[in-house]
């Protein structure tokens, strides 16, 4: 076994382990030099990215991977249920991990210049690495309790980062709101995990998915899990924390926080499609009830509308984009909800693909806009739309990037938002024609919101106080350039992306039996012990 195979074999553990170890080494390294520390953080993330490429290649060629901590086989000798902590990686996990590492790398690169005027940078990078490790853990794990632990780590580290500008009362308020909501959500997730353990004596997702009966307790657990996870993903009616914390955190952090939100979103998708996979395929269609899917689709539509409406009336640049982010979460849940409601049909598959495709597009588009807000803030120390104006004269590249971002986020061709939104429109139409009408209307409103911002911030008369501002430093421009390049690439060649990454991820969600059979032979009875 050569070293590459060995690395590939242990890559699931190392992907979480390296950022976690690097997080606690960062304060030590920063004693030497600030530059060395920044380089250290970036190199560690690059190593993680390399391992992710290895893992992704392995999953694409050899199918689902399991990694059991402390053992080679999922079942210990003499036990009928998997008791060890296990990572299970299929194409869906690979997809999420790729998004996370893109966000992490670009966010850290951007932070180099963005944070260089602040003190406490060693703590900043420590918590950032901790946040990245927890997101990677959330999207890799195949164990319910392990998911909860990583969720709590991500809660704690995101809260600390939202409150990073501790001298501002607003960020403290947003951070307190965030920690109250997310810790209550996490505790209820733990409660639901307890319900699973009480019934099936196991914490492993695949084993629970195999044994699930949809008893009364399972219904309670489903409602609790979906409510808590969609709350952490920012679905209406629990979206207000998202606008506050996205709006008040440093923009470089908001960029990485998108990853944390999407990890919760991934959790909701995993619960719906895999853990409750048997329920939605076999048990519910017979009773012709449509409640859960209907509620998700309805909430997604309301989320889109309210997100856009609230974005229209905002005067703060960052908060405006935060509400646009709420609307984008609605699009993802719209695709996923329609995919769940019409599972097994042709258009259901397209809707699911559109929803999944929109996950990465949301991360890139909204992320780019937040980076631009950060650039504007860095250059002018101002985020209020009413006080900004005429920035295009001095911030040439930033303005160009903003045009790309606004067209992408409002779903205009030839950018990536168009590709995924078109998939959502054309498939949801077949479930109910009202759904795409609302979605398209919101998309047009979104364009209106951003055109308004574009005129008032970047165009208009030359304001005297902004005469002297300079273009932002190179590392910030480079970070934004990477995202713009990805947006244009995905927008021009969506087929390459859909057929290589999205399609396998959607297939992994639809064929949940292969996820189960990797761990346990299906239909074996899992009794007590």
């Amino acid at each position: 076994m050569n070293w590459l195979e060995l690395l590939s074999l242990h890559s699931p553990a190392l992907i979480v382990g390296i950022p976690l170890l690097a997080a606690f080494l960062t304060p030590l390294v920063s004693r030497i030099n600030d530059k060395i520390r920044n380089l250290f953080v970036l190199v560690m993330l690059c190593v993680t990215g390399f391992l992710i490429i290895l893992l992704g290649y392995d999953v694409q060629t050899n199918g689902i991977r399991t990694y059991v901590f402390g053992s080679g086989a999922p079942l210990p000798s003499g036990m009928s249920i998997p008791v060890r902590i296990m990572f299970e990686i299929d194409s869906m996990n690979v997809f999420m991990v790729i998004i996370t590492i893109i966000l992490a790398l670009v966010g850290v690169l951007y932070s180099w210049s963005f944070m260089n005027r602040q003190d406490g940078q060693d703590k900043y990078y420590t918590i950032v690495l901790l946040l990245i490790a927890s997101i990677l853990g959330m999207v890799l794990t195949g164990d319910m309790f392990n998911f909860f632990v990583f969720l709590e780590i991500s809660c704690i580290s995101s809260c600390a980062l939202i409150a990073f500008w501790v001298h501002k009362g607003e960020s403290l308020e947003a951070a307190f709101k965030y920690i109250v909501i997310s810790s209550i959500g996490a505790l209820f997730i733990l409660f639901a995990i307890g319900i699973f353990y009480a019934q099936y004596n196991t914490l492993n997702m695949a084993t629970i998915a195999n044994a699930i009966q949809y008893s009364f307790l399972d219904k309670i657990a489903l409602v609790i899990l979906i409510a808590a996870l969609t709350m952490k993903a920012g679905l209406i009616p629990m979206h207000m924390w998202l606008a506050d914390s996205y709006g008040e955190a440093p923009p470089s952090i908001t960029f990485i926080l998108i990853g944390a939100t999407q990890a919760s979103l991934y959790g909701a998708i995993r619960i719906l499609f895999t853990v409750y996979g048997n329920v939605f395929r076999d048990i519910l269609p017979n009773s012709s009830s449509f409640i859960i899917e209907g509620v998700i689709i309805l909430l997604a539509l309301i989320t889109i509308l309210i997100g856009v409406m609230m974005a229209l009336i905002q005067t703060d640049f960052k908060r405006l984009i935060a509400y646009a982010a709420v609307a984008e979460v609605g699009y993802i849940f719209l695709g996923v909800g329609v995919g769940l409601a019409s599972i097994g049909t042709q258009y259901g598959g397209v809707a699911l693909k559109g929803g999944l495709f929109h996950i990465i597009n949301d991360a890139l588009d909204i992320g780019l806009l937040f980076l631009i807000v950060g650039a504007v803030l860095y250059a002018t120390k101002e985020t209020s739309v009413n006080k900004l104006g005429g920035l295009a004269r001095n911030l040439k590249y930033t303005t160009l990037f903003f045009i790309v971002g606004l067209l992408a986020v409002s779903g205009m061709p030839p950018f990536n938002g168009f590709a995924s939104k078109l998939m959502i429109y054309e498939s949801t139409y077949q479930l109910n024609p009202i759904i795409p009408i609302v979605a398209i209307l919101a998309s047009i409103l979104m364009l209106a919101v951003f055109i308004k911002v574009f005129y008032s911030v970047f165009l208009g008369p030359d304001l005297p106080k902004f005469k002297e501002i300079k273009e932002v430093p190179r590392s910030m421009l480079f970070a934004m350039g990477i995202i713009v390049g990805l947006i244009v690439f995905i927008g021009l060649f969506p087929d390459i992306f859909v057929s290589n990454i999205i399609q396998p991820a959607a297939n992994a969600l639809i064929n949940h039996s292969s996820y189960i059979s990797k761990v346990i032979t299906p239909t074996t009875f899992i009794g007590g012990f």
Partner: protein
Amino acid sequence: MIYNIPFIAVVIMVIIGLFAVLFKRNLVKIVIGISIIESGVNLFLITLGYREGGVAPIFTSAPSEIVKDTPGSMVLPVPQALTLTSIVIGVAVLALMLSLVMHIYRQYGTLDVRKIRRLKE
């Protein structure tokens, strides 16, 4: 019935905690409410770990005749492990929340949620 008392206590604790979070105006009381919910969930996990006739999974202190006669009677210590982890996480969250409350008090000069409202719309 007697075995259901812990579960009833769990529900009562979670409801008390939620009530405190939703209706109390003081930030510290909200933190206390979250702490009560956490205790309720931990109690739930511990209660799940009870198996009638089981032996606590401490190898050295288990009665030797039970270990010899019925080797399967030692319970799986998963709920206990979960609870320990959950308590440790809870302490971290509690400390973070209280330090945030402290900073908020410094910034706003009050702990009343009705007055801490700079974030609107």
